[in-house]
């Protein structure tokens, strides 16, 4: 049933169509003012019909009358002829023509329609009389007869009638009738118009005003109209209006549902959204009567027990007692249990919890469910005795569908938020561990280097110490000799230098191996100075290599960095390879993280040394070579490190930059070195790192670093922006 209703329900977009219809209704035809009212039309129609009727009547009447008038004239003519016959008798038989003349005069006098009378006797005597001006020969109607005397014709009588005689007669007899007919027609016309007005015009106007004002009273009267058509039209209009009302309400409800669907914002919590949605429903749905629109929204837990989340005007008693509703308890719990809308027009036996001092009411309990799972419940109060309708049910279904969507969306949002939080945390952990790996790698390489560096330092310390001790002893020996010389000097003036003294000094000189000392002391001193320089260089290189505390990119002398790296790694390669460099002397400073770049170069050098070491061991005695060059190429600085380690086998060439990939024995390599090197070059420096292999000869690692980094570009932009900020 509900589904059917829903099927009939117009989609959301129909609200616009409806509005358009309303506009059509409001904009009346522009030439409406020129149009005649229906009653005028009715009157005109009646008048024209009346006039036509009158014309027909008059024509018919006058035709009939004309015939009867002609008969009358003939009749009168017979009478006149009879009189003339008698008078003619006297004129012909008695020879007295005065009677004839008198009779003629009298006839003319008595009958105005006669224009002239003529009597012609056989003796050619002619008597002719006529009215003044009218006795010309153009008489319209002429009657003629033989005048008889004793069965013999004595003459011919001719009476000429006036041309308008008939009309005059007609007018005379019809005149009164005409007035009567017109009066009758007017009355009849009026009556017809009035009837027409009452039966047609008034109902039509009534329907119009009922449509315009939506007056139910007017429509009810019209439905009761005696005319079947009016009654039918009024009934149809009534249904139309009801349908329109339903449409408007549905439109309003659609708006509510639409608003409920669109009002959810990511910042809202579920309960905030539900509060807003409940307010929207109660505020804008007209049939939720009563001054205080009441309602609530519950959320269901896993066991479909309800918890009150949003409430409006429920009062503290209900809000408290209904804060949790078990499944199957009360109308709400029963609605959840049956997963269908439950309606009550008053508090009936289905209400398990009855609260004192709560006024009786009707209510809808509508489960909010999605895919058969109850997510919550919408409760709305309706006035006591409210009649439920399919349309309301349909609205409530759509409203709860919207709520279900929104609740589900909120759940997803929360899930997403928590997932993204977890992701963020995981990412931070990954970054932290990456930093740790980098640090560990750095430490391990430093640790690995430490032994070599210690050796590099300990060697000069050893010989500088030896030399110093030697110099110390040598000085003691020389002091002894100098003492001898002093003694000789003291007595030199006396020219009495004893042979014993000279022999003693010579003896000392021989004893201390003066020649050796003279030869060795400068060498010991210069070698000691060299040793100290070596120590100083390596310490300086260590400092430069590790570049501690460098958080930002800074312009660096790449050549110097490479030199330091070579120095600190010397012990790693010197037993298996020679190392040559070919540095571009005018290399510009390159923005980079010096410490990390040196780390990368060290890694490649150590790898090269290991590769060469593997080969040199087997070849016995031969040294490999590591050749490092720097040069500028297309806005980039290119560092290439070429070794004679035999090259990376084809099969693993693509894997060398993968994390944890290593060909070294367990414990010798972590497999992180080149992976980190790759990440440092490509990600941190936006540069490139690739390798070129000459199979069986060696590998060349090529690092390409951009001379201009984004940092530099953004600084440039900032400089450009400065004038703007000044003007602003």
């Amino acid at each position, binding site marked *: 049933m509900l589904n059917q209703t829903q099927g009939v329900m117009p989609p959301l977009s129909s609200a616009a169509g409806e509005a358009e219809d309303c506009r059509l209704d409001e904009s009346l035809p522009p030439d409406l003012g020129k149009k005649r009212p229906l009653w005028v039309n009715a009157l005109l129609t009646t008048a024209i019909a009346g006039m036509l009727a009158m014309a027909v009547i008059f024509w018919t009447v006058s035709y009939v009358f004309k015939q009867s008038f002609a008969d009358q004239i003939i009749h009168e003519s017979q009478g006149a002829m009879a009189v003339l016959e008698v008078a003619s008798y006297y004129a012909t038989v008695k020879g007295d023509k005065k009677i004839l003349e008198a009779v003629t005069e009298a006839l003319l006098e008595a009958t105005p329609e006669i224009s002239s009378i003529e009597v012609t006797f056989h003796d050619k005597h002619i008597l002719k009389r006529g009215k003044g001006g009218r006795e010309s020969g153009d008489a319209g109607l002429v009657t003629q007869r033989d005048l008889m005397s004793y069965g013999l014709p004595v003459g011919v009588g001719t009476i000429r009638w006036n041309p308008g005689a008939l009309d005059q007669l007609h007018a005379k007899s019809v005149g009164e009738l005409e007035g009567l007919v017109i009066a009758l027609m007017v009355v009849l016309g009026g009556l017809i118009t009035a009837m027409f007005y009452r039966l047609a015009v008034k109902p039509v106007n009534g329907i119009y005003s009922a449509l315009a004002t939506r007056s139910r009273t007017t429509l009810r009267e019209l439905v009761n109209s005696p005319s079947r058509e009016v009654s039918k039209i009024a009934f149809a209009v009534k249904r139309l209006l009801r349908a329109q009302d339903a449409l408007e309400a549905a439109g309003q409800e659609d708006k509510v549902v639409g608003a409920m669907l669109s009002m959810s914002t990511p910042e809202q919590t579920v309960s905030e959204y539900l509060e807003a949605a409940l307010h929207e429903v109660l505020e804008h749905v007209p049939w939720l009567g009563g001054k205080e629109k009441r309602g609530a929204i519950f959320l269901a837990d896993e066991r479909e027990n309800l918890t009150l989340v949003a409430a409006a005007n429920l009062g503290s008693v209900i809000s408290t007692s209904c804060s949790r509703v078990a499944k199957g308890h009360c109308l709400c719990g029963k609605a959840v249990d049956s997963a269908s809308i439950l309606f009550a027009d008053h508090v009936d036996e289905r209400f398990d919890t009855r609260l004192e001092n709560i006024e009786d009411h009707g209510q809808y309990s509508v489960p909010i469910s999605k895919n058969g799972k109850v997510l919550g419940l919408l409760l709305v109060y309706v006035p006591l005795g409210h009649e439920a309708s399919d349309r309301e049910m349909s609205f409530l279904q759509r409203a709860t569908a919207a709520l279900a969507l929104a609740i589900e969306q909120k759940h997803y949002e929360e899930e997403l938020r928590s997932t993204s939080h977890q992701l963020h945390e995981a990412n931070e952990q990954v970054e932290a561990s990456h930093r740790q790996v980098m640090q560990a790698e750095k430490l391990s390489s430093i640790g690995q280097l430490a032994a070599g560096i210690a*050796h590099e330092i300990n060697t000069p*310390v*050893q*010989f500088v110490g*030896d*030399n110093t*001790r030697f110099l110390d002893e040598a000085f003691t020996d020389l002091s002894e000799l100098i003492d001898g010389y002093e003694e000789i000097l003291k007595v030199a003036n006396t020219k009495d230098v004893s042979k014993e003294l000279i022999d003693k000094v010579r003896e000392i000189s021989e004893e201390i191996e003066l020649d*050796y000392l003279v030869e060795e002391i400068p060498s010991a001193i210069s070698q000691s100075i060299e040793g100290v320089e070596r120590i100083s260089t390596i310490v300086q290189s260590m400092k430069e290599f590790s570049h501690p505390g460098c958080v930002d990119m800074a312009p660096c002398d790449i050549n110097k960095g490479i030199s330091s790296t070579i120095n600190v790694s010397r012990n790693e390669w010197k037993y*298996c390879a020679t190392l040559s460099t070919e540095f571009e002397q005018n290399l510009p400073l390159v923005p980079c993280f010096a410490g990390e770049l040196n780390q990368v170069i060290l890694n490649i050098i150590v790898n090269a040394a290991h590769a060469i070491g593997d080969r040199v061991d087997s070849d016995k005695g031969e040294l490999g070579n590591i050749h490092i060059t720097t040069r500028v190429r297309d806005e980039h600085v290119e560092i290439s490190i070429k070794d004679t380690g035999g090259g990376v086998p084809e099969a693993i060439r693509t894997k060398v930059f993968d994390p944890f990939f290593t060909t070294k024995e367990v414990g010798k390599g972590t497999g992180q070195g080149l992976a980190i090197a790759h990440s440092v070059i490509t990600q941190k420096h936006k540069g490139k790192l690739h390798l070129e292999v000459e199979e069986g000869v060696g590998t060349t690692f090529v690092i390409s670093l951009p001379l201009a980094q984004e940092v530099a570009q953004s600084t440039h932009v900032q400089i450009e922006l400065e004038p703007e900020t000044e003007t602003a």
Partner: protein
Amino acid sequence: MPLNILFVDDEPHILQGLKRSFRGQRKEWNMSFALGGAEALQLTDDMHFDAVISDMRMPEVDGAAVLKAVRDKSPDTVRVVLSGYSEMENEIQREAYSHRYLKKPCSSTEIKKALAELLPISDH
């Protein structure tokens, strides 16, 4: 009779420094200096040494090889390691090839002391 002592290192400065610092022993010691393992092997072939003091890490023939050869050739020769590496060498290797492990930097006094302790042992 002076003792024959052989110093082995791949770094000439070290050998020269040792030679200078043991100048005081020139009467008791007859010192030889081998620049690298190969030269040391040649010298040990030619004559007997009472003590060999060798660096460990050297190109081509390293200290371990030299000491191993010395042990094989003349087991009575005192074998001392004088290494620049700070980490501890493998214990067994140390035991096998050397009687004493000395770390650079090491003063001549320490070396002398070590040899003084070791030489009577090898005398028997």
